[in-house]
């Protein structure tokens, strides 16, 4: 009977790795993160793949085409081959995809970071201090009615409006997506906190005289955080999609800086002549969004207490 005691993390991993789909999602995400970091380094800091070189003689070449002899020596891409073809200006699509992967990923993570932070803060306040009255209104009413107001706007059009008013830089996009998508998390965290506040172990923590911050951050947050993390991971996929859609419409990150959304937008004009321009970013977005969703679902399953070994 000497069973090695398992931490919740070990138990989580044991269940998570049983889910083949979630593991394949995790593999795709790992590759994406490597690609994004490599993309940032190899296209901006030490230019090994140059996304901006224009080679008009080599435009619209399909993937794996070799370079024509008219291209100047210094413009020849690494490996002497266009791995993913070229676009209408003869730019290397592989280099542009690499550059775009960093944009997509950082927008996804930063936007979700902002929205999760706001969500936990407001949801936690509404859930824990909800009964405190500010004049004629309670904290809970104030925060939750504001959340309802925010939910009334169709998010995408709200983003479009704000983007139209502000200069379309990558940082603005991150912040705007972040501050227009915290409502779900807020409701979620509030509900978790309301339920946890009544749990005996939280009352017990109060009974042994623990300070309030300790009860909130050491007893309640760790028990509420798992579902929030899952929704955040699925939220990253939504943020990536939103950014792609904005770039596709021309409101997102501006050319010549490449993102998957604007590669797709350029490609749609040549869908019959150069279908790879359309399909490569499209399939990349599909796989990444799918991978985030699979990992999120896998985590949800693994954290399901019914599957846990007693």
């Amino acid at each position, binding site marked *: 009977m000497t069973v090695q005691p398992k931490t919740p993390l070990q138990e989580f991993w044991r269940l998570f790795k049983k889910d083949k789909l979630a593991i394949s999602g995790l593999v795709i995400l790992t590759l994406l993160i490597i690609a994004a970091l490599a993309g940032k380094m190899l296209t901006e800091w030490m230019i090994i793949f140059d996304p901006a070189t224009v080679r008009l003689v080599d435009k619209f070449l399909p993937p794996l085409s070799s370079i024509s002899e008219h291209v100047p020596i210094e413009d020849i891409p690494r490996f002497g081959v266009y791995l993913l073809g070229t676009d209408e200006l003869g730019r290397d699509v592989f280099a542009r995809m690499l550059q775009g992967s960093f944009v997509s990923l950082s927008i996804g993570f930063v936007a979700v970071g902002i929205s999760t932070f706001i969500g936990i803060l407001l949801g936690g306040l509404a859930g824990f201090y909800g009964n405190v009255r500010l004049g004629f209104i309670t904290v809970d009413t104030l925060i939750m009615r504001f959340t309802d107001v925010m939910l009334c706007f169709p998010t995408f059009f709200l983003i479009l409006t704000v983007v139209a008013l502000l200069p379309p830089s990558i940082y603005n996009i991150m912040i705007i997506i972040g501050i227009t998508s915290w409502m779900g998390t807020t409701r979620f965290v509030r509900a978790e906190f309301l339920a946890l506040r009544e749990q005996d172990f939280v*009352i017990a923590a109060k009974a042994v*005289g623990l300070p309030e911050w300790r009860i909130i951050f050491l007893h309640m947050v760790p028990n509420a955080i798992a579902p929030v993390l899952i929704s955040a991971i699925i939220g990253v996929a939504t943020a990536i999609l939103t950014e792609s859609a904005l770039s596709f419409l021309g409101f997102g990150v501006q050319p010549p800086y490449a993102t998957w959304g604007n590669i797709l937008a350029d490609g749609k004009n040549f869908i019959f002549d150069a279908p790879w321009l359309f399909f490569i970013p499209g399939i990349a977005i599909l796989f990444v969004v799918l991978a985030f969703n699979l990992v999120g679902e896998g985590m949800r399953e693994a954290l399901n207490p019914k599957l846990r070994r007693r």
Partner: protein
Amino acid sequence: MNKTTLQNKTTPLLTVKNLKKHFPVRSGFFSHISAWVKAVDDISFDVYAGETLGLVGESGCGKTTAGRALLRLIEPTSGEVYFDNKNLLKMKATELRQIRRQMQVIFQDPYSSLNPRMTIGNIVGEALKVHEIATGEALKHRLEELLDRVGLSPSYHSRYPHEFSGGQRQRIGIARALALNPTFIVCDEAVSALDVSIQAQIINLLRDLQAEYHLAYLFISHDLNVVQHIADRIAVMYLGKIVEIAPADTLFKSPKHPYTQALIAANPIPDPDIKHEAKLLEGDVPSPVNPPSGCPFHTRCPSVMDKCKHIKPPLTEIKKEGKSQIVWCHLH
């Protein structure tokens, strides 16, 4: 039966005076208060050092609310609670945190009373760390001592609650309550969720601990047999009010309030040959939102009189053989 001898009978450790807890019922768009649930409505009692006061009553009569309100785990609506002659309800948060060391609580449900993400060692030892009672080696030592005292192996300190059974979890809950060396513990249905065999173990543990540390218990339960076994005195609650307080043997021998009589009559006796006059109550408990005027029990009382319906029954003390039995009923 080695019930703790009553000591220090003159000054109570805990005095509850006119404690009330009313919950608002909110309704409508602006959630205005449309009614009040009078969960605990004007109760008063004393608990002496080293004794066990049983608090019995049917589900929903406000037992648990009373236990939590007097510890200020929920804010009471009004009343006074004196612990060691200090008024708890007037205390600021920091003072209250200090005095909480001396009054602890053991919960009914051993599955929800332990934080699933903390190890046993952290659950039991956290209070010691926060109150700066023990750190480092001393903390480890105290932990081992506590776990050993409640009958668990000290090697369990690095395990998580889900690895334990209900009875073991309840022992962990008891260790947590004991950690701060309290003088008073509210046992809120502490054995109701356990198997009968485990119940007996936990009750014996509670009694041993009481004898060892001179603890006072407020033992909340709906199980008359358990209360009879452990309590020195018993308070009977009905619809947010206490209707009778008496020493345990007196209460079971000669219950004075018709509700107490009905409760005891309804308690099954494990002997098929004994026939007891069935005095079963009719009707349901009235809603605490709109409790009956006068005596709360008059709607179901077999010996109801006219004045029961309008006048609140006064406190009547019946003294017999040096024992005091207090009842709130017009019959006495």
